[in-house]
């Protein structure tokens, strides 16, 4: 597919590889530990499960302007984008390379770091730990959180969420721990997936077959109102890429201000939000949309992105 066509393609429908190629500058993406390396899960064959040459994640490096951009792009069609040993190691490897690239940039361009600073971009499509190799997947999550902390002050980490599976389970907090989160309205972000809530607590608490409930609770518009997603974009690879380029043109300090957690100050802000949760005890996200000043929450789910962005009232941030 030509690059220009890729830009117009739905992010939701795109494969992990299409997203990785389309997000970086034309012709700049090099896949690392790609299909030709055949780094497949050693654990799936024992269980008689199909394997994939890339273990469900495309990892590599591209450019956005002068910035080396280290990309992780998960493929939801392969076991729901779930993280096993190889998949997790590929993610960790990308963070390690980005940190090395930062050391290089800091040494070569100490006075022009803003221009050459590397970034990590994660296009999430995952339910978290892969049950077939659950223990190794779990340990990989801990490594990635550790590496995200290593990037602080050095490398911006940007989450892109707009794929079919959404971003749930352990990867839900990995995304939360990154600097900036971009979502499309179709993107979904959370910790406990709808099916698991229904199974653990019951259908009265959460009806996992109710698509609009899922979207209201975990979707891009809700997360945007809550300031848990920093920018909401249209469902096109090009729209995500434009937003990404916009971010990388901003000073690093302004990306750090997009964080929601990662300091005591931010934790205090979140604690105030939890107190509000206890006080309002909303039965639906619409209650909180109304609380923040959206007088007609029923209209929000059907709104076009442009109109929504023009009219939506968001949670006021306490930490600037």
């Amino acid at each position, binding site marked *: 597919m*030509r690059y220009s066509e890729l830009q117009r393609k739905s992010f939701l429908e795109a494969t992990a590889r299409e997203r990785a190629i389309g997000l970086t500058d034309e012709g700049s993406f090099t896949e690392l530990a790609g299909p030709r390396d055949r780094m497949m899960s050693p654990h799936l*064959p024992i269980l*008689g499960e*199909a394997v994939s*040459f890339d273990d469900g994640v495309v990892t590599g490096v591209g450019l956005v302007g002068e910035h080396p951009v280290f990309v992780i792009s998960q493929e939801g069609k392969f076991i729901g984008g779930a993280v096993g040993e190889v998949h997790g190691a590929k993610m960790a490897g990308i963070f390690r390379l980005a940190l090395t690239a930062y050391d290089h940039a800091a040494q070569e361009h100490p006075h022009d770091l803003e221009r050459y600073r590397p970034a990590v971009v994660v296009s999430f499509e995952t339910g978290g730990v892969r049950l077939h190799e659950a223990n190794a997947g779990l340990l990989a999550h801990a490594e990635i959180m550790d590496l995200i902390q290593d990037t602080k002050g050095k490398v911006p980490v940007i989450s892109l969420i707009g794929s079919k599976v959404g971003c749930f389970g352990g990867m839900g907090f990995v995304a939360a721990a990154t600097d900036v989160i971009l979502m499309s309205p179709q993107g979904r972000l959370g910790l406990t997936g709808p099916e698991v809530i229904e199974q653990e607590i019951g259908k009265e608490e959460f009806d996992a077959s109710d698509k609009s409930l899922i979207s209201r609770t975990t979707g891009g518009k809700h997360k945007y109102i809550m300031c848990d997603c920093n920018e909401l974009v249209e469902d096109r690879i090009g729209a995500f890429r434009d937003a990404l380029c916009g971010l990388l043109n901003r000073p690093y300090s302004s990306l750090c201000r997009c964080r929601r957690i990662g300091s005591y100050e931010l934790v205090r802000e979140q604690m105030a939000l939890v107190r509000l949760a206890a006080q309002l005890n909303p039965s639906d996200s619409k209650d909180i949309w109304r609380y923040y000043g959206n007088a007609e929450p029923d209209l929000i789910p059907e709104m076009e992105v442009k109109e929504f962005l023009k009219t939506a009232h968001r949670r006021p941030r306490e930490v600037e």
Partner: protein
Amino acid sequence: MALVHLKFSFDGIPGASIPREWSHSGVVGSGDMEVLLTRREQNGRVNVTVCTPVSGFDRVWELVLRRFVAESGCGDLELEINDNNATPFVVGLRLRQALLEARGGEI
């Protein structure tokens, strides 16, 4: 319960390989497959390995692959397939798409 590995070899057309050293196409979704094509000069032969969770369909694989090699007029290739329950129709379709992509065509 373990995965099934199948091997096939067909007569193809010498010199009818792909322009690049290798090419990859497809996603191992449910009912789908991926294929890695590698150029290899071997008097036109097309060797195929299939890795699949489904057993007992060796004959079907052979038929589908034989037809693909004959109809596409390819040769001098190694094909490595990771399958997850793709139907014969999907297998044929994906192989044709993969070859087209590898040759730089639009799909």
